[in-house]
């Protein structure tokens, strides 16, 4: 008989019953709607045991590897321990190990967590100054390879958090880091698939992590990284990425600016980022795309890429949240 553990309680799954039915029958409150595996309202996560493949149909690869499944179509054939996905976990304390100015308005912050944090390059965390002030930042570092967590922080005029980072935060100071989330990350298993990475501003941070993860994983498909800025000083990893692209024949770096300026490097393209991407990558069929940064640009590109033939489930994005 199959057992289901939820909220530290064991439930017996009747023959042919779904996880959702089982939990609802026992008075548990689980959000749900279509009960046909379509609407994704009953998304849950298996923390122990493997759910049948059919319970993950239509989910993104990044959700699948984390054990997410749809409770309404999950008829378990082995014992499972499940939870609702966004249960708030405890924050982890971390120590600032390095603060570097990458450009006029971007700071690279490296912190060492007090215990190992399991994450994928490209996910984001909440950095907390104290209980009252927290902001989301994407992870530009690689788990397992980099000891520290790396963030690119864009300085916002009069920003509470960034003002603190710029004026007060010092190496050795403490802050806390809350659980990595987000599904904008590299997934193993499709090494030959072409990747399209497009980011504006510090939307580059998660893409930098994803790019490094792909390279480290031996990705063989082409990797096209577009970084958009208003003008060339905004392309804050320009030299490093230009060099990296020379070292890796399947990595293409496309620095783009809205407005050209004198003395800018000659590999920088001037124009509308969405148009440049569409011109360079006109048929993203079977590509995997990652879009990060300005929400309007992300939205526009998402549609363009889908209309140009990409599968909806192959387009990942984490629109940057301005606060």
């Amino acid at each position, binding site marked *: 008989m199959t057992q289901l553990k939820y909220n530290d309680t064991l439930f017996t799954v009747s023959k042919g019953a779904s996880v959702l039915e089982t939990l609802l029958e026992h008075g548990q409150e689980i959000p749900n709607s279509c*009960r046909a595996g379509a609407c994704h309202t009953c998304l849950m996560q298996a923390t122990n045991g493997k759910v049948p493949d059919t319970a993950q149909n*239509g989910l993104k690869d990044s959700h699948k590897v984390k054990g997410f499944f749809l409770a309404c179509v999950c008829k378990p054939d082995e014992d499972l321990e499940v939870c609702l996905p966004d249960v708030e976990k405890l924050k982890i304390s971390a120590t600032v190990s390095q603060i570097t100015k990458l450009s006029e308005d971007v700071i690279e912050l490296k912190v060492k967590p007090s215990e190992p944090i399991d994450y994928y390059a490209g996910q984001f965390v909440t950095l907390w100054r104290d209980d009252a002030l927290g902001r989301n930042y994407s992870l530009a570092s690689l788990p397992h390879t980099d000891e520290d967590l790396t963030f690119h922080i864009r300085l916002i005029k009069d920003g509470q958090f960034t003002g603190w980072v710029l004026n007060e935060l010092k190496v050795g100071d403490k802050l806390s880091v809350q659980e990595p989330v987000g599904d904008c990350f590299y997934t193993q298993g499709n090494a030959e698939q072409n990747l399209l990475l497009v980011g504006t501003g510090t939307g580059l941070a998660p893409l930098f992590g994803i790019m490094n993860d792909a390279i480290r994983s031996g990705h063989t498909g082409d990797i096209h990284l577009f970084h958009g800025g208003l003008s060339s000083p905004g392309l804050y990893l320009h030299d490093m990425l230009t060099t990296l692209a020379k070292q890796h024949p399947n990595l293409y770096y496309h620095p783009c600016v809205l407005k050209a300026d004198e003395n800018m490097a000659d590999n920088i393209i001037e124009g509308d980022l969405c148009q440049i991407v569409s011109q360079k990558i006109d048929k993203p069929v079977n590509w995997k795309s990652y879009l990060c940064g300005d929400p309007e640009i992300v939205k526009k590109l998402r*549609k363009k890429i*889908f209309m140009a033939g990409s599968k909806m489930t192959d387009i990942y994005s984490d629109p940057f949240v301005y606060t």
Partner: protein
Amino acid sequence: MASLYERLGGEAAVDAAVDIFYRKVLTDDRVSDYFDDVDMEAQAAKQKGFLTMVFGGPNNYTGKDMREGHKHLVERGLNDSHVDAIVELLGATLKELGVGDADIQEVANLANSVRDDVLNK
């Protein structure tokens, strides 16, 4: 005899159809405004539900859901001509996937069966 849903290929067929159908809907000036949602993923999930239903698949949609879900669109002018366009695009999607005319008609019938609820008539 296999059910319509089985003949069409079940959930795999829905997955194959949803991107094609959504692309058609977004390029069709007659209806695109009603689908140009900010959240494309949520929109695609809704369309998956819709396609599952008109493919004769398992669903728990009620007439009340249909009415509630489309009320704000009816207020924006959603009418029979838009439902006609959707049924047409649905047919074109299935044709592209190699579905026969008889089954396409059956899908159209299922889509038409919710017309009054959708339009809050």
